[in-house]
């Protein structure tokens, strides 16, 4: 049986103390799991990932990592902060905000150096990660001179060099061309095979289907609508319709019209 690595108990969070982002979330993620948090825009996926990375703190409920409660107070302890940060990595949805170092190489070295890994080891990690992500030619470039796909690879690389056990990925394939999307899916598979726990926030149903993840479906009321295997949830069109992950679509073919449910996933399902 897999060891539980992340557990959320009744977690809620509101922005500006008024705007609810997530309400009463209970979920448990096992070591090595591929876990997807899916839902429509604004349902609280990114907020949930930020709570799981200890970047913001839940207003109610508890969050445990490997049985240790993670809170603002707990992360003030230097020992626990180091323990938590070297084990949980977060790839932001907007790579622009994640890339804050002068060059790509500096970006890849930032995390390992923070973890007090020796410079030689850190450099070795950076070059190995650049090789697997195929970004060796970008090493001296500043982040604002990269394309969207390149930024995403560098952002992922900047977390991989820290070798975290858990990778929190916020909309990893959003806005990427099909080839880069395909590359990322293969990489996620490989990382999962290597024993990493993947937690992905997305509304890309094809990605969820490709990775065969466990799914937590968030409703527009910011609550968990259903937990289950990807196959079970993706096959329930009524459920997906109710949380706005698919929509009804009308076609006009000359005088004839017909209506059907539509999403990128259903369209390309194979």
């Amino acid at each position: 049986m897999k060891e539980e690595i992340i557990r959320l108990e009744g977690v809620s969070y509101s922005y500006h103390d008024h705007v609810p982002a997530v309400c009463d979330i209970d979920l448990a993620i096992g070591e090595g799991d591929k876990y997807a948090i899916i839902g429509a825009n604004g349902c609280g996926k990114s907020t949930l990932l930020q709570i799981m990375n200890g970047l913001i703190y839940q207003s109610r409920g508890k969050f445990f990592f490997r049985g240790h409660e993670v809170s603002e107070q707990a992360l003030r302890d230097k020992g626990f902060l180091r323990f938590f940060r070297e084990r949980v990595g977060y790839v932001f949805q907007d790579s622009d905000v994640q890339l804050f170092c002068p060059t790509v190489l500096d970006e890849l070295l930032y995390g390992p150096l923070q973890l007090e890994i020796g410079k030689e080891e850190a450099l070795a990690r950076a070059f190995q990660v650049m090789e697997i992500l195929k970004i060796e030619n970008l090493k001296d470039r500043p982040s604002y001179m990269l394309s969207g796909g390149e930024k995403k690879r560098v952002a992922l690389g900047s977390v991989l060099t820290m070798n975290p056990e858990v990778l929190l990925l916020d909309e990893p394939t959003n806005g990427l061309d099909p080839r880069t999307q395909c590359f990322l899916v293969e990489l996620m598979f490989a990382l999962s095979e290597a024993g990493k726990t993947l937690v992905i926030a997305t509304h890309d149903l094809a990605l969820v289907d490709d990775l065969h993840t466990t799914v937590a479906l968030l409703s527009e009321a910011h609550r968990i609508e259903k937990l289950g295997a990807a196959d079970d949830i993706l096959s329930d069109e009524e459920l997906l319709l109710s949380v706005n992950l698919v929509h009804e679509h009308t076609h006009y073919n000359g005088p004839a019209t017909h209506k059907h449910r539509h999403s990128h996933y259903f369209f390309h399902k194979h």
Partner: protein
Amino acid sequence: MASDIPPFLLTKPAAHTYERGRGKLKTTFIEKGIHHLAEVIRTGYVQWETATRDNFFQKIDARVKVLFLIFFIIIVSLKKDILAEALIGAFLFILMLVSRLNIFRLYKRILFLAFIFGFLVALPSAFNFITRGEIVLTVLRMPKPLSLWIYMIPAEIGLTREGLYGVIMLTLRVANSLAISFFVLNTTTFTEIIKALKILRIADGFLMILTLSYKYIFIFARMAEDMHLAKKSRLAGQVNNTDARRWIAGRMALIFKKTQLRCEDIFKAMLCRGFSNRIMIYGVGKLQARDWLAGVTFSLVGALFLWM
């Protein structure tokens, strides 16, 4: 792909417990600064929320409110009497109560700013070597007067009645001006203010700068906050103040570069939608009876304060 995974990514941490007793992290100035920046976004949200409520002053047309703002700030600046200033303050307090604003939060900011930019700035002028008059509180007594260049420092140094009167007046003026501004800002949305200024024939260039600056502050605050979170997610220990300052200096350049690129994109988006250096507004209705009534009432109250 699986065979390409570097060996270091296959290694796992030895233990699932952490080393205790390594000490506690202190909140650095950078963390506090970012929290203040985040407060900008929160303040913007709170202002928008209070301005869209269905209360007394919120319902009044923005043109009346902008004229009220200008008229009352002129009155506050002209009055030379503490009682009149105190009465204006009381009138504004009642208006805030009627509009159901968060009195505690607003007055905390107003009094803090009035203390810094009113009281502390004016306090030195209360001493007898700047404002002559009757000393009410002696601070220092010297054996004989001192002569410094063209200035004569008297033997007895203290706060004068006339000087203190001036300090209280200036503090009240600053507090009242702030109260009027915060009151209008918290009862009128930014877009309504811009519309009102446009109707009052303020130059388009000025309004454009005002609108873009307002938007820029939020974009800048959001970007800085997100970047701080991204850094925080990869930080595993205490950063000393020197390193934090270096980081800030380096990242400021990066943020400005990114912001410049974002601004160019925004300007292109404006151009492609037909922008030609003119602000076009819509949805400006006629003043209603309620607006005229409020306008006349404020004018009469203002005239009364001027007459006092």
